[in-house]
């Protein structure tokens, strides 16, 4: 969660206060008959500015706090959350949550992780930056990024704006085994979304570029982000449909990341035990070529998905999800692990107020040696995909059919932009049909992939 406050003012409780609050709530839960419980408390602040055509369009600041509680009464459980931290309100919440837990049925698999599994070390993963940007500074950075986009091509005549967001937050997790953990994190992001007009047809195209980092000083310059946004927008002008056919498809970093996100969903313990993933029963089986390796690394220093412990207090770690083409690990928390007869992989993710689910930390495909240009050069007639839209993925079957935009490749060169087409296949087949992976791995989120090429998919257009 994100929140906000004027820098310099100290409205937040002193350090240790949230941990004390968590302990107090755990004690209340015990008094109300909970046999086990855990509590997550998050607070933070957020400042976001949006510039459009050189002036401030929107400015937003906030400060937030929220407490989430999970209670077990034997094998029954319920979760709750509130933003009201007064002791009377918390007491009522605890009592209502216990009542709620008693109203549902016993789930033999439910419960906290074993005390011996909880994190004992809480390494500093360098997730927090003290740099507080004041409002004027953020406005200036966003203005510079948008100005760079507008200045880089005369066909860029309009803009959806440039956004600079910064946020700082703190998470405390405690449970009735006596575990208490805390970490702080920050993030800074800058995004620009220019609009270009085709001087001939008058038709418009929009695209965007962005960067997001835990450390302010590692963020790309506003000018670099603005220029890249402009480049990506202008190159879409004059896009057209293409005929329906089966061709090789090259996914750029962004769209390849989306494909890897589909893999991440398919290896989630919850989808698997419900029979809702096409990768059910595939552990130990070949998924992709033998140079294809995927990691989920919760302890990457400064990583956008890094954290010292997971949403249940287990230590995070580096898991090999796909090892040389073979599926070697699912992403699991305690519950989904038990359902599948496997230990947790330390991937419990917790949004305050929900029971744990499973999520990636830093989930990525290891890079190969080819540049993106080399991969494109190797295609005689095919599609380079730079945008995917819609939700046409059936995780149960792996059937895949999404709206796409990008460029047509002829004899190893990008020729003209294409739009209003779909690409279709089946994810299982698509992963096994990956022919090349690029060298261009960059993290702009929790999930990242280099450019990759799939041997053949159905492109539908005219």
């Amino acid at each position, binding site marked *: 969660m994100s929140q906000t406050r004027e820098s310099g003012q100290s409205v937040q409780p002193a350090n240790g206060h949230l941990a004390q609050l968590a302990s107090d709530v755990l004690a209340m839960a015990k008094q109300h008959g909970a046999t086990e419980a855990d509590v997550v408390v998050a607070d933070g602040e957020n400042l976001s500015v949006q510039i459009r055509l050189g002036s401030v369009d929107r400015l937003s600041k906030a400060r937030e706090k929220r407490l989430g509680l999970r209670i077990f009464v034997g094998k029954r459980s319920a979760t709750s959350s509130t933003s009201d931290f007064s002791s009377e309100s918390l007491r009522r919440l605890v009592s209502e949550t216990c009542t709620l837990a008693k109203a*549902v049925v016993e789930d033999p698999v439910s419960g906290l992780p074993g005390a011996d599994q909880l994190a004992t070390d809480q390494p500093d993963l360098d997730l927090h930056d003290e740099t507080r940007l004041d409002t004027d500074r953020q406005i200036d950075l966003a203005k510079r990024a948008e100005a760079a986009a507008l200045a880089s091509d005369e066909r860029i005549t*309009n803009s959806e704006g440039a956004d600079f967001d910064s946020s700082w937050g703190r998470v405390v997790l405690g449970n009735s085994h006596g575990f208490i953990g805390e970490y702080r994190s920050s993030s800074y992001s800058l995004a620009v979304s220019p609009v270009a007009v085709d001087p001939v047809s008058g038709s418009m195209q929009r695209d965007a570029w962005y960067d997001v980092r835990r450390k302010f000083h590692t963020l790309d310059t506003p000018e670099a982000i603005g220029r890249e946004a402009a480049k990506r927008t202008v190159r879409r002008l004059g896009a057209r449909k293409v005929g329906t056919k089966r061709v090789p498809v090259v996914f750029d970093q962004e769209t390849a990341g989306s494909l890897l996100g589909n893999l991440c969903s398919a290896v989630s313990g919850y989808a698997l035990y*419900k029979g809702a993933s096409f990768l059910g029963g595939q552990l130990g089986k070949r998924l992709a070529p033998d140079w294809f390796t995927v990691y989920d690394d919760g302890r990457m220093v400064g990583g956008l998905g890094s954290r010292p412990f997971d949403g249940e207090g287990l230590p995070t770690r580096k898991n090999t999800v796909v090892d040389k083409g073979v599926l070697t690990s699912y992403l699991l928390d305690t519950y989904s692990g038990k359902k599948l007869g496997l230990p947790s992989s330390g991937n419990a993710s917790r949004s305050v107020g929900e*029971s744990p689910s499973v999520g990636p930390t830093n989930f990525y495909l290891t890079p190969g040696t080819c540049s993106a240009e080399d991969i494109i050069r190797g295609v005689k007639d095919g599609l380079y995909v730079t945008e995917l839209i819609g939700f046409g993925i059936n995780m149960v*079957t792996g*059937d895949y059919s999404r709206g796409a935009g990008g460029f047509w490749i002829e004899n190893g060169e990008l020729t003209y932009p294409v739009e209003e*087409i779909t690409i*279709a296949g089946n994810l299982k087949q698509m992963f096994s049909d990956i022919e090349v992976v690029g060298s261009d791995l960059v993290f702009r989120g929790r999930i990242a992939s280099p450019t990759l090429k799939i041997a053949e998919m159905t492109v539908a257009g005219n």
Partner: protein
Amino acid sequence: MGQLIPLDSFGVTEHDVLEALGRVKVRDVDYADLYFESCVSESVSMEESLVKRATKSISQGVGVRATAGEKTGFAYSDDLTRHDLELAADTARYIANSPGGSQPVPVPVHSRPARDLYPVPHAQADVATADRVTLLNLIDAEARRYDPRIKNVMASFNTEYKIVMVATSDGTLIGDVQPLSRLQVTCIAEDGGNRQIGSFGGGGRIGFDFYRQGDRYLNYAKEAARIAILNLSAVEAPAGVIPVVLGGGWPGILLHEAIGHGLEADFNRKKTSAFSNLLGKRVASDVCTIVDDGTLPGRRGSLNMDDEGTATARTMLIEKGMLRGYITDKLNARLLGIPLTGNGRRESYQSIVLPRMTNTFMLAGESNPEDIIKSVKRGLYAVSFGGGQVDITNGKFVFSASEAYLIEDGKVTKPVKGATLIGSGPEILTKVSMVGHDLKLDEGIGTCGKEGQSVPVGVGLPTIRIDEITVGGTQAG
């Protein structure tokens, strides 16, 4: 009439509100408002025949906003003390050029919405957990009874009870109680190695009785099971440009994606919509008339008032194919000099107001639905969809069928696997050649996302024929 919400339900006084409004409404500020919200949401869910999850969430807070020209300043707090209100007001007015010099604002007239579209007594909205559990257990049994190949049933029942209060610098103080619930069933069918999924559900701003009327909840279970079983025998979807017949109800998501978003006033003010400058021009065939209507009783997308305190309305978007209007909030209506339509919505006190749809649907036409299907030699008949998405600027939209069939020689034949339809917003409705007399609104499950904010919406459609659209299957030729 709607209810008169007392200010002290938020623990603030009229004096606090006036002070905060005065503080934020400095000279350069055109408009300011405070939005108080308190929301309790509860969810119970079932899987593997066990009702094993229950959650409850309580949130309360205030959002403070100032607009000056095109600028919006915004702050929110989950504490409602005078100090927090002042802090938020100071932040929101930061966008004004000359922050000093608070202005007196008119003492707001405390009022209630002119109508009550969802008069659900609190006792009815506050469903006992035991009743929810019973309902979900019966759903599980019903879905499994439908066919032994149903291997898993997942169902969830969610309710939300929201009380909102808007105080504006133009002298309004108005509140609303907004109940909302949804029951969703998903079945997984398995036959040999073939596994398929089917989902169905419904809801609205209604009480618990709604689900029991005519055994509606059991029908949701049967429908989810039927779709999952049907998909076991589905064939690959065709790829290429073919005629498509859309069934009534939820396929109205086409209007929401292809047309609705492009007619939201913010995109048109910024001239970043493919529909910018098309007011008064033809954007659909003359059999198409489309409205956005927030005034339908009990519907998921309906509201007594929008989140700026404006009464919702029925807004003509497209009349016999001609673009007639945009949907607006206060900021965009003022800047564009066009009518205020009561579509200023926000996900919560933590989000800013944006022009958003309510219930968007096409009015019934004159064709017989059977004749529409008979008119197609080879095409697709799509009756239910998953999600959709649109690129506002170039107008390209996609949406994915979750239940669709081939039409061969005027007859509905084999079910096909999830086909994606892709087209261009300003063009697609010009290809609508037949509109059925069978207008149907959806079951009440829609949620629309924009700029990271989710709001409940409704859609509706009669059976229509689209002469050509690109279908993105795997079967080329």
